[in-house]
């Protein structure tokens, strides 16, 4: 158990008054950053990075990584309360979290979200502690075809879920793909659909679309329905945390699935956002209450939150061991390592034991501190819903606008956010689903470049997608997910029952 003694040493590094203080500051800042849409963890860490030059590298990374944990926690807050995802990975949390808040169960939804974030992170940290070298080796097996297979799997586990008209789902998805293709094409280096304007060079940012479609769209709907929040009668009861905790153990399977998906996506690195979508999709498919997903089902909060936090945490592993960031925030932290004079890479674990194990120990501590902080604030967050709509709505719109502006420091994005808000409103009125659009926008770009990189490598042979065991089995799993409704019918016909539930789990 060499890892164990290393970890204990790490705790002795992390557990100084000074480091605990930095941890606390980091978490609080992180929650704030997470709450403000647009100002993501990556921006927050980047802004604070230069301030850390005078600190020791260990204290610096503890503070910055705590900002990251805080942002992961905080992203859920506005998703649940106002249907505005504070961070990209909390989009899937809105699907059930916001309906819960509308039904007066905001406290419950927040507790579930925070707790499942914590569980996801904890399991991911344990994995990092004991399996780091193995996991790093596994992640090296991922080339472009494998990445494409993962993205395909995300798609397949999510599509076909909506109850809406299939044609409308396809229309929404195609619109998402079209928006995703605007800007520079990384594979050929040419511009697409920018119509000669400089403003469109950067393409359509996923966050802007999400803030508009979900947040502004929701406010427009609320205005039409009578200028009041439906969650006004939310019980503000400090014991809501305990009451929710009592019912959480029932959903251990959903949480475990979410965590595994998250760990896997964080390492490969697929990222927290696709992980949350995939986890939500798979949970919906395999839950007994799957039919009720989208109407305020607590499992629909647990699934994406465990996955997002597990992915966010395990994304730090490839950063430390390989020097490739698993998420945008990890990318900024990576830059920080270099500036502090540390070289990320396979030797970091050997040469900088204090630093690495101090960081890992701070992941345990940071998440515990974070959980305590956010849970104690649940009743206050839920109480925001009691503020009259006429006061809070303008504030939300201003915060959204600031958030949209900060993504790229561009005024056009604020206009786009409003346009997306109207689109979101129309979509809801005309009963078009928003999720496929968002998913296509976030994944379309990545899936396209992985696919075309694969095609370049194989010189146009599609067989590259089943050329080895790994890519073949992920693609196989994706097909299984796509045709799952048909498969279940067949299974039922063959009276095999539901003994194959474990198929849902992706390759670990």
């Amino acid at each position: 158990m060499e890892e164990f003694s290393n970890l204990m040493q790490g705790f002795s590094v992390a557990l100084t008054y000074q480091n605990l203080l930095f941890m606390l500051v980091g978490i609080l800042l992180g929650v704030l950053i997470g709450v403000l849409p647009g100002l993501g963890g990556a921006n927050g860490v980047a802004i604070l990075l230069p301030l850390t030059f005078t600190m020791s590298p260990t204290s610096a990374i503890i503070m910055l990584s705590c900002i990251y944990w805080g942002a992961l926690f905080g992203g859920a807050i506005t998703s649940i309360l106002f249907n505005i995802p504070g961070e990209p990975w909390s989009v899937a949390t809105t699907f059930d979290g916001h309906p819960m808040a509308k039904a007066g169960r905001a406290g419950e939804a927040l507790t579930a979200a925070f707790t499942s974030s914590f569980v996801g992170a904890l399991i991911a940290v344990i994995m990092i502690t004991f399996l780091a070298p193995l996991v790093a080796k596994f992640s090296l097996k991922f080339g472009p075809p494998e990445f494409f297979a993962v993205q395909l799997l995300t798609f397949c586990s999510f599509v076909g879920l909506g109850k809406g008209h299939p044609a409308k789902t396809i229309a929404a998805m195609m619109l998402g793909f079209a928006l995703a293709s605007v800007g520079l094409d990384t594979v050929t280096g040419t511009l697409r659909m920018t119509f000669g304007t400089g403003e469109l060079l950067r393409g359509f940012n996923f966050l802007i679309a999400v803030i508009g479609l979900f947040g502004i769209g929701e406010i427009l709907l609320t205005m039409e329905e009578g200028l009041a929040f439906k969650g006004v009668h939310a019980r503000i009861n400090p014991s809501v945390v305990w009451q929710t905790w009592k019912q959480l153990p029932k959903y251990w399977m959903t949480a475990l699935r979410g965590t595994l998906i998250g760990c896997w996506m964080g390492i490969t690195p697929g990222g927290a956002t696709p992980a949350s979508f995939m986890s939500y999709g798979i949970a919906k498919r395999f839950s007994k209450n799957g039919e009720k997903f989208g109407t305020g089902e607590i499992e629909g909060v647990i699934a994406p939150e465990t996955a997002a936090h597990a992915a966010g945490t395990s994304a730090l592993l490839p950063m430390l061991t390989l020097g490739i960031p698993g998420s945008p925030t990890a990318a900024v932290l990576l830059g920080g390592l270099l500036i502090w004079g540390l070289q990320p890479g396979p030797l970091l674990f050997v040469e900088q034991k204090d630093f690495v194990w101090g960081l890992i120990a701070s992941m345990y501590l940071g998440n515990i501190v974070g959980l305590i902080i956010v849970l104690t604030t649940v009743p206050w967050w839920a109480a925001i819903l009691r503020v009259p709509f006429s006061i809070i709505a303008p504030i939300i719109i201003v915060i959204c606008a600031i958030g949209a502006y900060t993504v790229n420091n561009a005024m056009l994005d604020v206009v786009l956010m409003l346009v997306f808000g109207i689109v979101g409103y129309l979509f809801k009125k005309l009963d078009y689903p928003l999720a496929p659009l968002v998913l296509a926008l976030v994944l379309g770009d990545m899936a396209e470049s992985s696919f075309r990189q694969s095609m370049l490598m194989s010189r146009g042979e599609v067989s590259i997608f089943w050329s080895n065991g790994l890519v073949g089995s992920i693609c196989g799993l994706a097909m299984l997910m796509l045709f799952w409704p048909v498969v279940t019918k067949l299974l039922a016909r063959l009276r095999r029952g539901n003994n194959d539930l474990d198929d849902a789990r992706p390759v670990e």
Partner: protein
Amino acid sequence: MQTNHVSTLFRSLVAATTALGMLAPASVLAWEPTKPVEFVVPAGTGGGADQMSRLIQGVVSKHNLIKQPMVVVNKSGGAGGEGFLYIKDSKGDPHKIIITLSNLFTTPLATGIPFNWKDLTPVAMLALDEFVLWVNADSPHKTAKDYLAAVKAGTDNQFKMAGTGSKQEDQIITVALDKFTGKKFIYVPFKGGGDVAVQLVGGHVDSTVNNPIEAVAHWRAGKLRPLCVFDDKRIPYKEKITETMSWSDIPTCMEAGVKVDYLMLRGIFMPGGASQDQVKFYVDLFKKVRETPEWKDFMEKGAFNQSFMAGKEYADWVQKAEDTHKGLMKDAGFLAQ
């Protein structure tokens, strides 16, 4: 200016006094920023240019080199075109500077966006980034000669080269190697240099032309092998990176007979129409930055070529580099139609 409104009688007198008045403070009080300086990075967070600019930001605030804060802003859209157009549109604003990489030339040439470096005011060259030919440590090829001979002896599209972006520096070098060997590499573009290095470690491609800082960690861990550096002289750093090798032990590609040298600019520009005073302020600022231990350490870690230039010398260098890129990109068929 005020003299226009004064009657002719007093004009000469007033003009003389203003001239005197202007002269005295100009020599004592040079221009300096009166509000926060926006430091634009035409690339994403976490990349080489981003790291360098955030290091500068940290050094500047730690050593109190300017009285105003410096804010780093990423504008990476359209291979950095977004950042360049932004600075172009900020003509006459001395509170904005931009750090450049080769996309200063490649982006407008490949995409046809209405931008040329002459729209900006050159400030200073901070450093030049080297390019190294890397293979996986398990590869049978021990030298550049070996490897390129194998490519020559193979067929078109047999060997895969991963690189950052499309129609940018990595692909330009790859095309030069195509020419040298007479065989085509399959060029696979990725988003960042870190991804590229990992693809090579994972054995998904045969070689890369990563910058030193992007691949050094894997080299030290014994996963990658450097074959040659695309420069006319070896990298000067003599400190051992692995057990047996230092940067200076990597032969140049010229030594292997490949007449390709390519260095990437890490330089600073301001919006057009900047006054000499303003340019001088930034040149002095970056001179001070270069003297700090943090900067020196960073240079050595990334095996940068520490050339520094400013003024006409720098502008001439940029002009020459633009011509070189035009030629290279035209030959490769990368120019926008």
